[in-house]
């Protein structure tokens, strides 16, 4: 399984529909302070099912919806779509991609989709678990978190090992 693309719409500072494509190999995301790099990381956490607003640097989940800028009004909802590609492509082209979408409206309503079919958040988490994306605790290292790993208390370090077990 390989992460092929990420589409953001109304998510944090990505007000316009933005498609991020990840070619084969290592991708480096670069740019000046505050331009939106970590917001892309947040989008990945969010579409994988992150439930804690605090982990996304917000105080409430509504904080991930584009809040407006000097020239733009706030967005009505935030949407992130993630496309996975099976590395061993199957006979049926349609079967070789997994497309996951998460949407959040300002009134708090949430929508989840797998391959354009409505589902629950749990279905997304199960589908990803089958593909080995079970715990993102150690596959996504947020900005500043590297220091936490070492300053962690002995019990917290145990939790890190238990997640891998």
């Amino acid at each position, binding site marked *: 399984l390989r992460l092929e693309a990420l589409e953001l719409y109304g998510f944090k*500072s990505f007000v316009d529909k933005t498609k991020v494509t990840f070619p084969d190999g*290592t991708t*480096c995301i670069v740019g000046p302070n505050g331009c939106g790099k970590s917001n892309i990381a947040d989008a990945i956490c969010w579409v994988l099912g992150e439930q804690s607003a605090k982990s996304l640097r917000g105080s409430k989940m509504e904080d991930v919806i584009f809040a407006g800028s000097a020239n733009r009004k706030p967005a009505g909802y935030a949407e992130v779509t993630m496309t996975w590609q099976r590395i061993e492509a199957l006979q049926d082209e349609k079967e070789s991609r997994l497309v996951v979408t998460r949407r959040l409206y300002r009134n708090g309503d949430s929508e989840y989709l797998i391959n354009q079919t409505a589902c629950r958040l749990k279905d997304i988490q199960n589908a990803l678990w089958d593909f080995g994306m079970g715990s993102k605790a150690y596959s996504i290292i947020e900005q500043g978190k590297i220091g936490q790993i070492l300053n962690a208390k002995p019990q917290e370090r145990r939790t890190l090992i238990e997640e891998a077990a």
Partner: protein
Amino acid sequence: CIEKFRETFNTVNERFGHNFRELFGGGAAQLQLLDEDNALESGIDMLVQPPGKKLQNVLLMSGGEKAMTAIALLFAIFEYKPSPFCLLDEVDAPLDEVNVTRFMRKLEEMKRNTQFIIITHHKITMSGASSLLGVTMEETGCSKLVSVKFN
């Protein structure tokens, strides 16, 4: 269950020591159960000895040494239980040029089995990537992607 935990702990511990030696060019490091007889609940301690220095509390290390050690542990967990991709957000921020280069070399080895997405400000890290994704805020408050040429 206790067997699974012990197996995970021992494998990760061995990889951790190995990665530490690679990233530091020597020295030693290991995890240790605080309470050997209570493997089911015991917390985990970390002992580190950078090359040429004494075995010390991990807290006494410098900012850059702590980052390298955390990367060694992270990669150890990753090697034990790989994930389709790994996203690193500015983990190389406290590293000097020598250490960024060592980190890059370890990454070369790890990328055969994992798709890496790395956010960085370091030119050395960028030079090792197969593709660069530029992000800007031309219009205030609105992010967009731009193509990046590496010179």
